[in-house]
């Protein structure tokens, strides 16, 4: 029996989406971007609690870094004000740089941890920083009479 390997693209193509789980924002510290560390019950059998909590904690720390009010942000702000904010059109702000880092981190987490478990994290910035969306997939080849793709083997998984 050939074992197929799926990359993230094929996960989307050959597996069917079962449900989406949302991790909501935590507003206890104000309007800074922060996600709740509450473990959703739908993921109980899919992933270890600590892994998800670690991911959320790391994401929160990235957002804290992006929104930190300190020396560098003041400098950026004052320079921008002095130039009538034209620098925002030319320069990438610190926030955008951190968002790129977050994007890379989410991609990496998906590849290493979530895709093997049939889950997919969506970068919060694509959902307006409101929720952390976790898509739960199920391998389409399991139990379906017509193989939807030659890429999924017939007896790939048992239900």
């Amino acid at each position, binding site marked *: 029996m050939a074992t197929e390997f*799926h990359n993230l693209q094929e996960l989307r193509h050959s597996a069917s989406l079962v449900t989406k789980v949302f991790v909501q924002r935590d507003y206890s510290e104000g309007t800074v971007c922060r996600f709740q560390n509450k473990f959703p019950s739908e993921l109980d059998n899919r992933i270890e609690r600590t892994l998800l909590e670690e991911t959320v904690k790391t994401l929160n720390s990235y957002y804290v870094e992006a929104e930190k009010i300190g020396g560098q942000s003041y400098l950026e702000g004052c320079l921008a004000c002095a130039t009538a*904010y034209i620098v925002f059109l030319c320069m990438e702000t610190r926030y955008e740089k951190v968002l790129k880092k977050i994007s890379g981190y989410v991609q990496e987490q998906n590849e290493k941890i979530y895709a093997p478990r049939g889950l997919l994290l969506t970068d919060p910035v694509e959902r307006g920083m409101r929720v952390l969306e976790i898509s739960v997939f199920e391998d389409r080849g399991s139990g379906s009479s017509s193989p939807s793709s030659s890429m999924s083997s017939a007896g790939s998984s048992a239900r």
Partner: protein
Amino acid sequence: MTSCEYQQIDPQALPTPTPAPPPHHGNDRDKREEPKRPRRKWQVFPGKNRFYCDGRIMVARQSGVLPLTLGLIVITSGLFFIFDCPFLVKHLTSCIPVIGGGLFVFVVITLLQTSLTDPGILPRATPDEAADIEKQIDNTGNASYRPPPRTKEVLINQQVVKLKYCFSCKMFRPPRTSHCSLCDNCVERFDHHCPWVGNCVGKRNYRFFYTFIVSLSFLTAFIFGCVTTHLALRAQGGKGLVFALQESPGRYPFNHKRVLKFLSVFSLISPSSNVPMLSLTQPPTAVELVICFFSVWSILGLSGFHTYLVASNLTTNEDIKGSWSGKSGEGVTNPYSHKNIFINCCSVLCGPMPPSLIDRRGFLPTDESVQTAGAGIELPPLAAKSEINVEVKCLDFAVSCTG
């Protein structure tokens, strides 16, 4: 359903090319998709905004009196540069047009940035999110009819804050977010919708707005001062009104006692001053005087008010509603304030610039899964629904037929 086994997924999997779906197998949707260019998200944006330059520039649908604002500023400044500056350069200093020019450029740039920037619009909830929220609300009550306003309470810095549910955007609004009915968008840290600027003022463009009104106050005051000086100098030019009528620019001899001349402006307050009559002889200057006189008070007042808001980390919306003024009870304080005027000012004006969340120039996924306004469709249980795109569906179908 939860106990199915999974194969280990290798992220560095076989590089499978994705061929174009075979046309003869394609269904109608596929045929329609092929020749179509990918659309950008701004083209399907649900709010009442207008987009230009392929989504780079956005304005509210009703631009309000923005053309009037821009027109007033440009015309007044233009008249100032054309009619007053030459006189003042000769008799006072050539710094005047330089300062005036700098202020004018500053004002126009910040005005355009306030008007054309995304104020912090929150994208509407995706159907999945909306369904999830509805499910949570359903657990506590029935939703067969539109229930009373749904609220959720959160504790922010030991202060209870009520989050309201937005029926248009289908989500609970984050704190300090408000739905602007003119633009039909939820805007983060909503301050107000400014008709003069033709846009909402929110988290992302508040600093532009503040810089605009402060620099406009300086510009208006500066022009007012210069115009008054101009008239005063003309009145003093010799024999008063008659001389001013006959005088042509440039004939007045240069006098090194510039300061004395400038101070002589204060002779205007003398009852025998001819300023009202004098200003009639210089129509452009009269126009500037009137415009500046009426605007300088209101703009200075507005700048002062917003300086107070910045120092206490409040929004106009919160101030008007009295959210934190203690009217609704004791012990109600602003949970967002840093309790320090300097830190408040810095965090509002010099804080990090958040990016635009609506990604207006991004491309839509080809399955056209867009958020439509007020669709109000709740997704059925998601077991049967998949989010794969149409091309892949066709590929699967084609492969299954041949394989």
